Each structure stands twice: as structure tokens, then as C-alpha cells.
């Protein structure tokens, strides 16, 4: 199939930042994925105790709301990006077809489940997956998906089902494309604004912390406490899947490792190198080390989870002989994560202070 001339498809850690990077690259702006993530104020932490995930454990949010990175980058960098949720899928299709035909790649937010070019185990109901449409022929679309090395092919019937799901957190019939990129972008000012917002999202004032006990640093603490209690609260394959799913969420689901913390460290280092902000370089190095420690926590979850038997009927016997190890392992994992919370509680105020000393 003929795809849009000059569009360079490249894989990335994350779908939204990767798709935006590819779009901007096509529009003539060479920018890294960490730069987009950081400028979009990506990192957050939410322990959504009221929302069950696919593993039946509560959901954990480690980045801002889907679509907010695109919105923030566009606003802070002065890039004109058309972003619209169409009333009907037909209208979104009409607009996308017109744009593709004139050689403009189009980012869309879809449910990953219908992306049939991905391997079976990746096709889960995640209705906030960003991909770029870069060609069409008859009823088939060429898709640039940061999670797939080759260009994916998608039937219009599947795109139709994926584009408007009505699911929570989905952005039905959402379409975005780059209209224009300014000649000069004030990355300094954009990055400083973004860092301030990230710090505010992570560390709340004391009174607010008590109310929003599931968000930011307080959310990390709440989450750490629940890790220690998993062995008492869940059993059998639910326990196994839940533990492993948490580790996968932090490491493998398009985060670049350690729940985006490694990507954020890379962003701070890039700022230090570009603008000579040495203090941010040191903080970036610290964030990278923090990410490596976070990876240790995830690995400890994988180690614990793999030991839990897959079959519910085997669980009680296993629990009677290994229950103590399980509880001890989860307690240690909880401690490891509390340590990560302590780090971020000290880190983000320091980062905020550091950027307040910098001039855009």
C-alpha cells in the first residue's frame, strides 16, 4: 500500500509520545520522546482504589490523562495541532480520509484490542491507544503504531470498532494532526512550565494530601500499604495475575521502564545538556537511579507472582506451606515501594526549587 511520502515510522516506548514524535518529525521538528513526555507533564501517580483493572486489582495510574501530553505540548510550544472529538465515527472517517489523501498523517485514539497487526497477548481492551494513520487503499488503512516495528494494516471495520467504544477513559472519534510548527520554539519556557506542573501533581499541600490520599506521593504510600496486604486480600490465580499485572504495568506497557521514571530522568538530562542547566543534570541522574530502584521493586513483584500457583484448587495447599514467604515477600516489596515514595517526596520539591532558580 502507498503510504504518505516522507513519513518515517519509528517505534517508541509509549504510544502517545511516540505517535506525537513521529507526527512532529514529519512536520519538520526533530524532538525526542523524553522531551515530549516531560514537556507534556507526563509523570503522575494515582492509586485508583475505586476502579478495578483487568486483573481485578485496583487500577494504578502512572501518567497524566490520555491526550493531555498532546494538549500540553501543543499549548506550551505554540505548535498548532488540530485536536477534535467528532460527533460520529463517519465524520471522523471523512476527515481522516481527506487528510490522508492530501498527505497529512493523522493521529487517532483507539482501543488496542482491535489492532490486529499486534500479537494476540498485546490485544487488550485499552481504549486510549494512540496510533497514526498514514495511508489507505480501499477499506484498509496503514497504521504507524509505536508498539509495532512494521507498519500495521487495519480494516476499516476494525478501525470503526476501535475508534468509538464508549468505554471509560476513551476519547471516541478523536483525531489530531499537526497544522503548523513555529520557526522558533521556546523549549526553555515550555520545559520549566511543564516541570512546575509535574511537581504540583506529585506533591500536594498537607491538607489536600489527606483528601487526595490516592494521588501523588500520598497515593504512592497508600499503594505501598496495599501491596503488603495483597496476600490476605486475594487468593489463587487472581492474586498471581494481579501481582504480575502490576509489574507489567510499570515496566512493559509502554513506559520506557520504571513507570516512566527513566524517561523523565532522560528528559531532565536532555534539558541540562541543551541549556547548560547542570543542576537538572544531577537531578536527572538521581531520577535515573530512582528508576533503577523502581525496576528492582517490579522485579520483586515478578518473582513473587511467578511462585503463586495458577490453579485455584492448588492455592490452599501452597498457601499453607508458602504463606509466610509470600507475606514476607510482599512486605519487603511494600518497603521497597515506600522507599520510592520517600524519594519522590524529597525529589519533586527540590526539582521545583531548582527550576525556580532558572530563567527561561
Amino acid at each position, binding site marked *: 500500500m502507498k503510504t504518505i511520502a516522507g513519513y518515517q515510522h519509528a517505534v517508541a516506548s509509549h504510544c502517545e509520545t511516540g505517535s506525537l514524535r513521529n507526527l512532529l518529525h514529519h512536520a519538520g521538528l526533530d524532538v525526542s520522546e523524553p522531551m515530549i513526555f516531560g514537556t507534556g507533564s507526563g509523570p503522575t501517580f494515582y492509586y485508583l482504589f475505586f476502579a478495578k483493572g*483487568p486483573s481485578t486489582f485496583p487500577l494504578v495510574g502512572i501518567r497524566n490523562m490520555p491526550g493531555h501530553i498532546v494538549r500540553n505540548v501543543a499549548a506550551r510550544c505554540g505548535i498548532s495541532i488540530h485536536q477534535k472529538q467528532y460527533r460520529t465515527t463517519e465524520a471522523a472517517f471523512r476527515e481522516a480520509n481527506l487528510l490522508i489523501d492530501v498527505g497529512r498523517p493523522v493521529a487517532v485514539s483507539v482501543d488496542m484490542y482491535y489492532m490486529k497487526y499486534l500479537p494476540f*497477548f498485546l490485544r487488550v481492551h485499552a481504549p486510549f491507544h494512540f496510533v497514526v494513520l498514514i495511508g489507505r487503499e480501499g477499506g484498509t488503512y496503514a497504521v504507524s503504531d509505536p508498539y509495532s516495528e512494521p507498519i500495521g494494516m487495519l480494516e476499516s471495520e476494525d478501525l470503526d*470498532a476501535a475508534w468509538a467504544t464508549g468505554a471509560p477513559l476513551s476519547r471516541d472519534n478523536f483525531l489530531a494532526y499537526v497544522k503548523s510548527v513555529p520557526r522558533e520554539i521556546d523549549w526553555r519556557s515550555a520545559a520549566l512550565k511543564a516541570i512546575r506542573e509535574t511537581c504540583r501533581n506529585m506533591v500536594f499541600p498537607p491538607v489536600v494530601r489527606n483528601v487526595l490520599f490516592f494521588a501523588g506521593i500520598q497515593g504512592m504510600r497508600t499503594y505501598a500499604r496495599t501491596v503488603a496486604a495483597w496476600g490476605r486480600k486475594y487468593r489463587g490465580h487472581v492474586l498471581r495475575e494481579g501481582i*504480575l499485572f502490576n509489574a507489567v504495568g510499570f515496566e512493559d506497557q509502554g513506559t520506557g521502564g520504571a513507570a516512566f521514571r527513566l524517561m523523565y530522568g532522560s528528559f531532565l538530562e536532555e534539558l541540562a545538556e541543551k541549556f547548560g542547566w547542570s543542576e537538572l543534570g544531577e537531578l536527572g541522574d538521581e531520577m535515573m537511579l530512582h528508576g533503577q530502584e523502581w525496576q528492582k521493586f517490579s522485579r520483586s513483584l515478578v518473582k513473587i507472582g511467578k511462585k503463586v500457583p495458577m490453579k485455584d484448587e492448588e492455592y490452599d495447599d501452597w498457601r499453607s506451606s508458602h504463606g509466610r514467604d509470600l507475606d514476607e515477600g510482599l512486605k519487603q516489596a511494600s518497603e521497597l515501594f515506600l522507599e520510592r515514595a520517600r524519594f519522590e517526596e524529597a525529589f519533586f520539591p527540590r526539582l521545583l526549587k531548582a527550576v525556580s532558580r532558572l530563567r527561561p
Partner: protein
Amino acid sequence: MIIEKHGEGYDGSFRVVVYRKDDQGRTVTESVKSDMDDQIPTFYVQRREELTRLVCEVLDGKISPIALFMQYENMTLSDLSARIKLSSRRVKKHLAPAGFKDLTVDVLQRYARIFDVAVCDFFQFLYLDDGVSFDRKNRAERLFQTVDVAVRGASGSR
């Protein structure tokens, strides 16, 4: 619904892009195997076992085909009701065999869209042995389905 005896397997090619420091202390990206890579083949086995269990429950009249797909796709009742745009109470009815019988073709089509199947997939289980391939196409907004079945290496027949 078409159920292959062995079905798709994992070819070991999955990689994730991670950020890490190289020997010179520079941050680089790298495509690496996941720590969970050895669990992916297990995942396929689990899914097959889960499907077998759910099909038995449908055939025994314990759950409806809607419940089969909902559980197989790890969806929650609230997620499914949001997607189908019906109240949780009504969707819950459809999860039982008695409630399933009352469904209209229109609602079945909407469910079929969510589960990425055709309406006929709610009514039949077609088992395919090894060495047989198939090409399935949904038609008329998943109301109909054509399936080309062929012995691997031979030409297809409908």
C-alpha cells in the same frame, strides 16, 4: 465461534523499548526482552484452558455466550455496559442463558462489535484440527460471516 485445537503461539519476538545508561553514562534506548517473556507462552495456554472452561459452562446452560466473551476478554460489567450503552442491570440479565434468549438481533450485533465477532459466533462452536487454516470475514455489520476453510497447502473451499 472458531476454536483452533492449538491456535496461535508465541514466537519469542516481543521486545519493549526501555531507557538505560550505557557504559559512558549516557542515557540510551534499548529494545529488550521483558522479564515476563517466559510467561507469555503460559498466557496462551491459560487462555485456551479458560476458553474450554467457559464453552463448557455455556453448553451446560450456566452462563450465556455474552458472559463467555465478557469473562474471556477480562471485561467488567461496568465497562461492558458503558460500551453497549445499556444499564448494568440489563447487561447482567444478558449474562444468564434466560436473558440471552430475549436479545434482539440488533443488540446481538452491538455485542458482536464489542467482542470483535459475528452474530453467529454466539450460537455455534466450530472446532478446527491442526493442519487446517481458515479465513473469516464478517459481513453486513457482523450480521453474517463467511469462513474459507482449507487444509494447509491445499486450495480453499467455502
